[in-house]
C-alpha cells in the first residue's frame, strides 16, 4: 500500500514537471503553429536563473523567502520569450515551417552555449530549498515535502492556465486567434500582440517548470534537451495544441516513467516512444488533438 501510494505520488510529481514544460509547447503550437525547439532551453533558463538568484542572496534571506526567488527563474524565461518572439520568430511567419524549425533549433544551440558561457560547465544547485520541506507522512507512506510542493505547483498551474484560457476575455482572444487568425484580426484582434503574449506565457510555464525542479536536480547543461524530448512525447500522446492533451499526456508519461524506473529501467524511454508511436498510428493528432 505504502509503495503504491509512493508510486502514485511519484507519477504525479513527474507529471507536474512534464505538464509545466509541455503545456507551453502545446500553447505556442496551438496559437502560433510553431514547434518551438528551443522550448526546453527556456526551461533550462528558468532553472539556471532561479539557481543563480538563490545563490546570490542565500546567505541573507530565510529559506522560505528563497522560494519566492523561483519565480525569478520563471520571469526570466518569460522575458526571454517576450524578446525572442518579435525579433527572431515574427519575421518568419510568412515562410514555410522549415524556417521556423531551423530558427528555433538554432536558438536552442545558442541558448545552450550562452548558459555554458554565463554559468560555466558545472551544475548550479540550491538543495537547501528542497531540504527546507520536511518529509510528509501520507497515509502511512513517507514522502519528500518538496515533491509534494512541486505536485501542488503543477496542479495549480494546470487549473490556473485552464481558467485563464477558458474563463477570461484574453482566453477568448487566444482561442479565436488559434482557430482562425485572419478572422480574429478582421474583428479587431491585434494578432501580433496575442502571439507575443502566448509565446511569453508558454516560456513562463517552461521557466516555472525549470525553476521548481532545480532544487532537486540542479541546473545542468543539457537539461533543456532532455526535457524537450520528453515534452514532445507528452504532446504527441496528448495532441499538440491541446491543454487537456498536455495534462493527460503528462499523467501518462509520468506514470509510465515511474513504472519504468521500478520494472524496466533499461527500456523506459523506449517504452515511452513505443506508446507515442502507437498513439500516432491510431490517432495521428494525439488523444485530444484535432486533425
Amino acid at each position, binding site marked *: 500500500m505504502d509503495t503504491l501510494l509512493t508510486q502514485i505520488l511519484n507519477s504525479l510529481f513527474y507529471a507536474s514537471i512534464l505538464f509545466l514544460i509541455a503545456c507551453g509547447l502545446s500553447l505556442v503550437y496551438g496559437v502560433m503553429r510553431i514547434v518551438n525547439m528551443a522550448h526546453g532551453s527556456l526551461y533550462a533558463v528558468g532553472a539556471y536563473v532561479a539557481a543563480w538568484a538563490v545563490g546570490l542572496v542565500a546567505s541573507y534571506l530565510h529559506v522560505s523567502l528563497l522560494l519566492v526567488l523561483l519565480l525569478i527563474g520563471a520571469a526570466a524565461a518569460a522575458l526571454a520569450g517576450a524578446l525572442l518572439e518579435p525579433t527572431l520568430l515574427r519575421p518568419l511567419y510568412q515562410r514555410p515551417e522549415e524556417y521556423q524549425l531551423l530558427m528555433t533549433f538554432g536558438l536552442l544551440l545558442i541558448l545552450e552555449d550562452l548558459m555554458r558561457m554565463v554559468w560555466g560547465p558545472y551544475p548550479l544547485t540550491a538543495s537547501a530549498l528542497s531540504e527546507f520541506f520536511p518529509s510528509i507522512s501520507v497515509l502511512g507512506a513517507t514522502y519528500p515535502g518538496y515533491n509534494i510542493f512541486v505536485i501542488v505547483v503543477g496542479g495549480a498551474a494546470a487549473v490556473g492556465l485552464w481558467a485563464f484560457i477558458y474563463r477570461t476575455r484574453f482566453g477568448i482572444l487566444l*482561442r*479565436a486567434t488559434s*482557430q*482562425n487568425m485572419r*478572422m480574429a*484580426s*478582421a474583428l479587431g484582434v*491585434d494578432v501580433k500582440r496575442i502571439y507575443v503574449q502566448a509565446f511569453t506565457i508558454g516560456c513562463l510555464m517552461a521557466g516555472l517548470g525549470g525553476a521548481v525542479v532545480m532544487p532537486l536536480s540542479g541546473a545542468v547543461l543539457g537539461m533543456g534537451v532532455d526535457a524537450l524530448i520528453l515534452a514532445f512525447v507528452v504532446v504527441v500522446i496528448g495532441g499538440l495544441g491541446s491543454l487537456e492533451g498536455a495534462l493527460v499526456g503528462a499523467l501518462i508519461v509520468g506514470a509510465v516513467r515511474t513504472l519504468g524506473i521500478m520494472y524496466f529501467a533499461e527500456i523506459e524511454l523506449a517504452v515511452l516512444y513505443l506508446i507515442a508511436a502507437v498513439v500516432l498510428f491510431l490517432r495521428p493528432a494525439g488523444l485530444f488533438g484535432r486533425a
Partner: protein
Amino acid sequence: MLELRAINTFRGPAHVLRSLSLRVGDGEAVCLVGRNGAGKTTTLESAINLLPIRSGTVLFKDRDITRLPAHARARLGIGYSPEDAGIFPDLTVAENLEIGRIASRADGAAGRAAVDERVRALFPEIDALVSRRGLNLSGGQKKMVAIARAMALAPAVLLLDEPFEGLAPVVVTRLVEAAKRIKAMGISLLIAESNVTNATRVADRLYAIDRGEIIFQGDPRTALANTDVMKTLRG
C-alpha cells in the same frame, strides 16, 4: 464613408483587381455583383486588409487607411462577415459575439449595452443559440452570427461577402430584412453578391465587376435593363 481608389491586388502571382475604384456613401447600401472569380471577395478583403493591395488608396471617412492593418481598420469601424462566415468553431456563439464586443467602438458600458440590444433586436433567434459551439450551427445560423458579431463592433460600414449564398429562400428573405434594418440604423453596407436579383432587393447602388474591373456602376434598375451587363453577370 469607404472608398477604394484605383487599387491593384494580387493573389500570389495572379493580378486579380485591376485599378478598381469603388465608393460607399454614408448610410448607403452598395452591392458588388459579379460571377464567381470576378474579384468580389478580393475587393472586400482588400478593403479590410486581409489581403494587402499592391497599389492604390483606401479611404475611410476621408482618412487614408491604406497602411492600417486589418485589426486597426476593424477598430475604426469597418465590420466584416466573410463568405464562409468565419465562425470560430470551438467557441460558443456567446464567445464569438464577445470577440466583436472586445474591439467595439461603443463608449462605456451603456454604449455597449445599447449595441447588444440592437444586435439582439436584429437577430432575436441568436438568444437561443448562445451556448452552442460554432461548429454546431447551420449555414443560415452561421451567417446570422457572423453579421451579429460584426455588428457588435458598432461599425460605421459593414462588408458582407455573399451573405445569402447557399441559404433557403425564407432565410434569404430574413437576411435581406436584416440588411435593410442595418441600413436604417445609418450603417453603410457593401455587399458582395453573385445573384443580381438578391442584390437589387437591398442595393441603393450597384457595381458590376468582371475580371477584376468595374464594368458598371449605377442604379440597380438600370443594371437590370442593360443587356450587356446582364449578359456578363449571368455568363
